[in-house]
């Protein structure tokens, strides 16, 4: 039995906007095991990002529990959350959020400089296939390349978990596949537990497990009998 990294119990998130309450999550229960690749699938507005953000220590829950390796994130202080993000979790977002004043290598170094057990920026960029783009600034890179730098940056600290929110959302399918290949390789070679959010059903094929979200609840959890490789995907 693999270790369970995340224990999510009855997670509820309510956004209050004046009079209106938006129930983004209505009692979500889920797990994320070591080494597995999970796709969170659901239509826009179903609460995927909210769930991921809470798991990543970026947002707070209204009720319920999120525990990372037995430690409750829902109870953690700001300082503990920062440390958690710093040492344990890597993020990839739809918008790459690179630092435009730094080159690809330096963008990765931003993380390796503060991490406890990092790999070298060169190695991280090699893993995403960008060895020849080390000294390029974001403005000199294509969208897909920028996203791969973002992935290199996220994994360079050797995180236990990698959380990706619509990593291909802003990319065309060909470039998107390159990005997914990079994620797949990292999951395979480093054994990093990976959660990928998407509203794209086709991507679900590359997952070990697919968690379907709908209207703030988990509608269904399915296991892929045959796990497709990213290169076989198309949409």
């Amino acid at each position, binding site marked *: 039995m693999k270790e369970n990294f995340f224990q999510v119990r009855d997670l509820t998130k309510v956004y209050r906007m004046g009079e209106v309450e938006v129930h983004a999550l209505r009692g979500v229960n889920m797990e994320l095991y070591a080494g597995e690749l999970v796709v969170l699938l659901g239509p826009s507005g179903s609460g995927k*990002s909210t769930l991921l*953000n809470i798991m*990543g220590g*970026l*947002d707070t829950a209204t009720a319920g529990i999120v525990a990372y390796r037995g430690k409750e994130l829902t109870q953690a202080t*700001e*300082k503990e959350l*920062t*440390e*958690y*993000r*710093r*040492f344990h979790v890597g*993020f990839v*977002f739809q*918008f790459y*959020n*690179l*630092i*435009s*004043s*730094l*080159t690809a290598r*330096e963008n990765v*170094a*931003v*993380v390796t*400089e*503060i*991490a406890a057990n990092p790999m070298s920026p060169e190695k991280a960029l090699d893993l995403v296939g960008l060895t020849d783009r080390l000294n390029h*600034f*974001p*403005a000199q890179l294509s969208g897909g390349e920028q996203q791969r730098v973002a992935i290199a*940056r996220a994994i360079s*600290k050797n995180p236990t978990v990698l959380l990706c*929110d619509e990593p291909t959302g*802003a990319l065309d399918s060909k470039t998107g596949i390159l990005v997914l290949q990079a994620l797949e390789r990292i999951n395979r070679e480093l054994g990093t537990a990976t959660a990928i959010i998407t509203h794209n059903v086709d991507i679900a094929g590359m997952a070990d497990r697919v968690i379907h979200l709908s209207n703030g609840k988990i509608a269904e959890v399915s296991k892929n009998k045959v796990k497709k490789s990213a290169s076989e995907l198309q949409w």
Partner: protein
Amino acid sequence: MKALHLKLWREIWRMKGQVFAISMVVMSGVATFILFISTMHSLDYTRSKFYRDYNFADVFVNLKRAPDSLKDKIQNIPGVRQLETRVSAQAKIDIQGFSENVTGKIVSIPDDGHPLLNRLYIRQGRLPDPFKDNEVVINETFAQAHGFKLGDQLAAVINGKWKRLTITGIALSPEFVLVMKIGAMTPDFKRFGILWMSRKAISKAYDMDGAFNDVVLSLYAGVKEGDVIRELDNMLGPYGGFGAYGRKNQMSHRLLSEEMKQLRTSSRIYPVIFICVAAFLLNVVMSRIINTQREQIAILKAFGYNDFAVGVHYAQMVIMIIAAGVVAGIAAGIWLGKMMGNMYMEFYRFPVFIYTLHPEVLIAAVSVSVLSALAGTMHSLWKAARQPPAEAMRPEAPAKYRVTLIEKTGIGPWLTQPARIIARNMERKPIRTFLSIVGIAVSCATMVSSGFFKDSVDFMVKAQYVFSQKEDMTISFIEPTSYRALYELKQTPGIHDAEAFRSVPVKLKFGHRSYKTVINGIEPEGRLHLVLDTNFQSIPLPESGILLTDYLGKILGVQVGDVLTVETLEGAKAIRQVPVVAMAKQYLGAMGYMNLNALNRLMQEGNAISGAYLVTDSPYREKLFRSFVEMPRVADVFIRQNEINNIYEVMAKSMLYFTFIAMLMACSIAFGVVYNSARISLSERSRELSSLRVLGYTRGEIAYILLGELAIITLAAIPLGFFIGYWLCAYVANALASDLFRVPLIIELKTYTIAAAVVIFSAVFSGWIVRRKLDHLDLVEVLKTKE
């Protein structure tokens, strides 16, 4: 249009912090502009009104003695409108309970009651009764300094006779708006006063029956003052005339004019600085706003607003941003102006200080601020107006960066990524970075220039009283006295050391230029009273020839080696040729120095002295002083320490006021620049900073990136500020230089330190505010949107 207005208000409300910071700078600019200009106008108006209402004379002259019959002849000089002959005299004043040297200038009032010229404004009481010889009216500052009330008594030693006088009135005169002794650095209200007595009384005391020794006259409009003065000098020469002079050389008038000159200089410097800084800040803010509103602009245009309407919309925004600052600046300027007026009234006495604010000044203040604000933002406004809608819809191209020069020097590999971010951001916007540095530097310079005031006074006091005067008491005789008097003084118990001096009023001429001053003859080999150069080194007095204050050299246009014509205005009135042998850089006055013997040779009156410098034993000082007051031939006694104390007493208040204003100005600039830069950086980079937070950077670490840049800018600004400050002080010192005084360009380390501290404090304060904002970055929100 309504909807657009709503948009304006909302946006301005959203950036209220920045609007506030800019308003502070605009306010400072408008306030200083109004302060200096309105005070200058008020002073000018108040002065002319006082002069007009109280008939201030145009020409003044003192002489030894002339019979009353001469009056008609003077009246017949073409151009003379009104004329008053007077008796005036110096007197030692003896005030019970105040055992320090006090001198008074006694001026006669015609027996028929009111003078024709230089009429008195009676603040309290009445004029002296012409049939009583013991009544006196005194000037207001003197009365206040001693707390005199009507009916109080004081004694005056007039012509060697001790006389008790009763105060019947307290008055002001256009002739003595500022009461100050010639040669003093500051007024001394306690130790110098004006006493008005009836002509009859003073004539009797001075043996001036049927005679006068002082003439004031007014001229018809359009008359050439110089012609009348020449005529007058010719006429009065035989009667010991000391040379007539016009208003511009009249002490009180002259000092008032200097003050106005100072205000004018200030009004040229400070408002300009502020308006430029404000324009720069607006430029930064507006280009940022317009950048973030590209899409909105496009949409407005798509809806059919034309370029002009869009330009007007943002111009309105600019005006609204500065509006509050302009209004507050006007209010603050008026408030500070009135405060300054009140402060002036402690020195310059008018019946009332009439605060005048000409509408043109207001219009100028408003239009200058608005126009410079628009000029500062012109570029961005233009860009906003001209953007084709389609282009505006497209997201802005990603910022381009380069590896910076600093990194290329070889330290690159050692930089942490945050340090690299700082360096590259600064280098990517070199102009903005540079202007931010200049802005903060200017605030630092403002502080330096305010501290400079005190430093230079300290230095002048040191130069004038500490290093060059080893004597602690100086006495001067009523008239030139035999050198023997010095031996007597030396024998007096309590007097350690004594040296003689001779001072002779003269007119110095070189070519077509001339200047009236005194030559001070000091003992060769003298140890007490030294003529110093700028390094406080004593300049030896040559056997013969004259040494001039360098500024006097400039006035006359002479060089060392030239030969001056010296016309003595006392005694035998000799005219002599004297070579200039040296120049001494001095800060006060403009005069000549000679070897005592040489001066006496020039005067051809044997070994005469005008007074003596004394070193006394402190236990005897009081007694010595009393005996000098009672000694008929002693005209005046100076006690060095009293002089020094007075300078600081007099200056303390105004120094505090100016330091206070400078501090406000400096803080508002520093705060305005730092806070705005920080807010702009925050708005430009909140996304980047949020990303770093997501990557596990702490609040402190991202604050370092944002504030580190500001810290570097601030630290870089300080040395530049010192430099600009020094330059500013040099400009001010140069602009204020006159024959009365030259401000030495001395800035103490302490002044620099305080200036740096004020700037750092303002920077830290604004940094702290931004840091608090940074702590509340919404990570999730930022990541959701694309830039």
